[in-house]
């Protein structure tokens, strides 16, 4: 095949395009941070997972140690069954506890894992029993309003709640 002057420019164009795809993958999507190392899966049951989604981070002390693998509903106990994929290089005690937390006020939800004191460590297939559900804003508000109503029972409910809210 003949070589021509265009070869250089076509080659450069293809390289620029590839570099752009690489840039998008590495810099904007941060492909490198995705761990290609092995992980082990543990399950946990939550009463309420709130807005937790698959692929959400599992953090311990703020460091990402795994991902939420899948979320299913268990119709025997009426709980959410969450499968977590934890990175193999991290070991956690068997009695570690899980919490569903929110990053920021309205940010996305993640699973926080707090280490327990057990000497045995979690292995693949284990199930964690001590879990704390997500905080649901509506439940908090209704609890708050209920307490308010219980405190000032004499005023009519229609206008007292917003007024007392303003005074505070």
């Amino acid at each position: 095949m003949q070589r021509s002057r265009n070869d250089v420019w076509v080659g450069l164009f293809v390289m620029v395009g590839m570099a752009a795809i690489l840039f998008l993958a590495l810099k904007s999507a941060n492909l490198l941070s995705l761990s290609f190392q092995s992980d082990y899966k543990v399950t946990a049951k939550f009463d309420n997972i709130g807005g937790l989604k698959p692929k959400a981070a599992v953090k311990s002390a703020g460091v990402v140690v795994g991902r939420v693998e899948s979320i299913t509903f268990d119709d025997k106990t009426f709980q959410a069954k969450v499968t977590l994929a934890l990175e193999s290089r991290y070991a956690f005690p068997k009695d570690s506890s899980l919490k569903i937390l929110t990053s920021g006020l309205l940010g996305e939800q993640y699973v926080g894992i707090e280490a327990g004191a057990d000497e045995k460590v979690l292995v693949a297939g284990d199930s964690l029993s001590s879990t704390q559900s997500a905080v649901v804003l509506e439940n908090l508000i209704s609890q708050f309003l209920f307490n308010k109503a219980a405190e000032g029972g004499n005023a009519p409910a229609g206008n007292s709640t917003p007024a007392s809210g303003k005074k505070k």
Partner: protein
Amino acid sequence: MSWYRPADVGFSARQTLAEWGHGARMLLHLFTLFGASFKRFRLVRDQVFFLGNHSLAIISVSGLFVGFVLGLQGYYSLQRYASSEAVGLLVALSLVRELGPVITALLFAGRAGTSLTAEIGLMKAGEQLSAMEMMAVDPVQRILAPRFWGGVIAMPLLAAVFSAVGILGGYVVAVLLIGIDSGAFWSQMQGGVDVWSDVGNGVIKSVVFGIAVTFIALLQGYEAQATPEGVSRATTRTVVVSSLSVLGLDFVLTVMMFSI
């Protein structure tokens, strides 16, 4: 042609169907010529040079300005919710998922599609295509297929360049001009952009748009009436039809990618 005379309606329906069928067969033919085109890669390379390299300037400049504007407008609406750091995420997601492939395809239709149509239309008007057939050279294989595969190769690369340059443009506006923290800009972006579901879908979109735009341009040129007027009409139709089909396909693809 009048809609109340059955003969006219039937004729136009038959004509439309024949055009569609012809187009579909042409597309299939082009796909089967994949191997043949790459055997003579010189032809494809020249088309990548013509369609890709020459479009690089307009694509990167438009990408830069789209990135600038996204940075500014994103900051304007995000700062109301005190989350102006997320402007990096907004710029990256809108470019990678949507604007990169779509605007590149629209520009590609205007910059490269029209020249393909005009070139092939004039070849047909000058009876060059018929002459090739006389010499037992298949014009689809010799003329259309290298252009088709050249366009299909060039388009995803151009879309990626557009998105990458746009993100850099957003960075310039958000970090250098407005003063958002550079670390927050990148980390928000990296936290929210997924390689497969965002970047990968964008690449799939740009490949589909590349196929659609190049194919429409080639078909319009090939089917053009062999007159100066016919070529000019075909060129206009290329822009109109390919822009509309890019936008339509974009909706369909987005719906499909959402549901998966």
